[in-house]
């Protein structure tokens, strides 16, 4: 079914029935068991989905879960995990999604699991299921426990309608929950379906985690709605990915820029895809071209946990637009680009991207379910993305990096992402992150941290000198430091707080010398 057909169907339905209707339509309209959910252990034909969901819902009822309870769902990508998410959406539960914590990690690994309004913790078993696990017997792969931090006096932050909650850490590490009503989330799914044009001929490789709004709302659900088959890959690496590629034969893939770089570095021969989709940090131009040489067309998209999909490029766009922009805004999105406040440098037309989205989130809540309005999150009714953007050609949007990760150098507003992108182009640089340093003669100082390929013997000074031959002088970092690994958050993003601390230690040590 197309996004128009689903839109027409949805207009007459209450929120709680939106996803149930979609899943039943998918099951009816995909015939011959051709469309499947798959992982390295299991397959589930779309025609079987309603029955699998009924079984999971029966398991929940028999475990004393009430329809009005909020559930914390712990999942990694698998068919079992996908069915569990679908079952909760189908039945109209309020729930939040989190990764399955590692061994003994519950105390600290999933801090948000302690949300006092979540009554249950539902965990889908680990990635390597033991013998005896059956998709038609949820008790063989699901475990449910009361949340030890549940507070009976707390209430789910919603009226009668169900909500989804996504953890949102941003790149600076402050955890909070973004609450979504079902209808705007559903409309977000249709926006993604409309842009990607999924149909039953598509076979999607999905290594991006479905506990994130991107993997779920822009990947799993729109592909399912279009009748595409989906291969769910947990904690993928180059070896697992290539193995699954041979078995599942995908013709579409959703990859993060980091995984895109992994494929470029790791694979030894090209393999054509109908298209690949990337989202998140900006991908360098050389990586974009190399990815297209190996896999065929690549399209960028941009979104946030709070707004869902905001903008997406399309296959028919010329190479330059696909490479440099995140395409045109999707249905329901209004945006503006505001000037960066004076003192931060206002040269050029770049500014903060602010969004109003008819299908955006309801707002933030804290762990007790209380409404949370973080300072500077909104400008009136505009959501402040914190991302630095410019308008591109033909109504497109160019996202340059984080506003708070930009500095003024020689009077020019310089996104750290631009320096990182240029450094990544240098031979042997595997990973790079740049942190602001103390003010100097050019303006704000810059410290670059690089992880190098093995066997390439180069010093930070040499790397800096090479960079200086290829980039504007104002963008040359003051110092370059080689690390064995960058500090990372659980989400895989660079831990900017840890990096800033490291930069501070280096600067202080330098001052003491």
């Amino acid at each position, binding site marked *: 079914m197309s996004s128009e057909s689903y839109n027409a169907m949805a207009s007459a339905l209450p929120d709680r029935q939106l996803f149930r209707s979609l899943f039943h339509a998918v099951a009816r309209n995909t015939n011959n068991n051709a469309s499947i959910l798959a992982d390295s252990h299991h397959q589930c034909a779309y025609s079987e989905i309603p029955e699998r969901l009924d079984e999971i819902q029966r398991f929940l009822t028999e475990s004393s879960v009430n329809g009005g309870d909020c559930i914390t769902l712990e999942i990694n990508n698998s068919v079992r995990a996908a069915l569990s998410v679908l079952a909760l959406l189908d039945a109209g539960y309020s729930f939040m999604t989190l990764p399955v914590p590692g061994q003994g990690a519950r105390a600290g690994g999933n801090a948000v699991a302690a949300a006092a309004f979540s009554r249950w913790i539902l965990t889908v078993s680990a990635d390597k299921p033991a013998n005896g696990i059956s998709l038609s017997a949820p008790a063989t792969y699901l475990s449910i426990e009361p949340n030890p931090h549940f507070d009976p006096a707390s209430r789910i932050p919603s009226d009668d309608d169900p909500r989804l909650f996504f953890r949102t850490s941003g790149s600076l590490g402050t955890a909070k929950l973004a609450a979504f009503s079902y209808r705007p989330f559903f409309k977000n799914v249709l926006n993604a379906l409309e842009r990607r044009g999924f149909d039953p001929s598509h076979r999607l490789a999905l290594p991006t985690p479905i506990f994130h709004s991107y993997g779920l709302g822009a990947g799993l659900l729109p592909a399912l709605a279009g009748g595409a088959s989906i291969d769910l890959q947990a904690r*993928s*690496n*180059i*070896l*697992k990915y*290539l*193995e699954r590629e041979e078995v599942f034969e995908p013709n579409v893939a959703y990859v993060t820029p980091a995984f895109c770089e*992994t494929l470029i*570095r*790791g*694979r*030894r*021969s090209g*393999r054509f895809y109908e298209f690949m989709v990337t989202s998140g940090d900006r991908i360098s131009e050389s990586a974009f071209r190399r990815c297209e040489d190996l896999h065929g067309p690549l399209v960028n998209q941009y979104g946030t946990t709070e707004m869902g999909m905001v903008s997406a490029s399309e296959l028919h766009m010329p190479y330059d637009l696909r490479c440099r922009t995140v395409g045109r805004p999707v249905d329901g999105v209004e945006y503006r680009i505001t000037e960066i406040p004076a003192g931060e440098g206002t040269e050029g037309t770049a500014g903060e991207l602010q969004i109003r989205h008819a299908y955006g989130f309801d707002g933030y809540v804290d762990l007790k379910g209380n409404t949370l309005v973080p300072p500077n999150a909104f400008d009136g009714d505009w959501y402040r993305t914190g991302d630095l953007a410019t308008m591109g050609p033909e109504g497109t949007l160019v996202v340059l990096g984080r506003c708070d990760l930009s500095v003024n150098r020689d009077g020019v507003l310089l996104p750290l992402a631009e320096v990182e992108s240029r450094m990544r182009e240098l031979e042997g640089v*595997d*990973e790079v992150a740049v942190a602001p340093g103390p003010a100097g003669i050019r303006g704000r100082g810059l410290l670059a941290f690089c*992880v*190098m*390929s*093995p*066997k390439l013997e180069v010093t930070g000074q040499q790397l800096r000198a090479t960079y200086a031959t290829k980039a504007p002088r104002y963008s040359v970092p003051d110092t370059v430091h080689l690390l*064995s*690994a960058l500090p990372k958050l659980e989400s895989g993003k660079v831990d900017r707080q840890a990096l800033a601390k490291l930069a501070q230690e280096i600067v202080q040590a330098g001052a003491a010398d």
Partner: protein
Amino acid sequence: MATNVDAVIQKLKTTLAEEPLLNLSADQIGDDVALMEGGLDLDSIGILDVIGLVETTFNFQFEDADLRMETFENLRSLAQVIARRIDG
């Protein structure tokens, strides 16, 4: 003469131990210790590093068909694939 797998294993141990980015010592790297989960715990980037190191050290290029979990299960499985590639 066919390449000696045990000799390849010894060369692999030295190569991996000498690579500072991997942060491994030779006595950590047994012939049958898992390279990834439950053993040396090489992550996604670590695997890429090992692929590059092996190709440079043994002067050949893997094919995509070699890049499988079973190849990188432990040093012995890796050495067997290397020996096959060297022998053509």
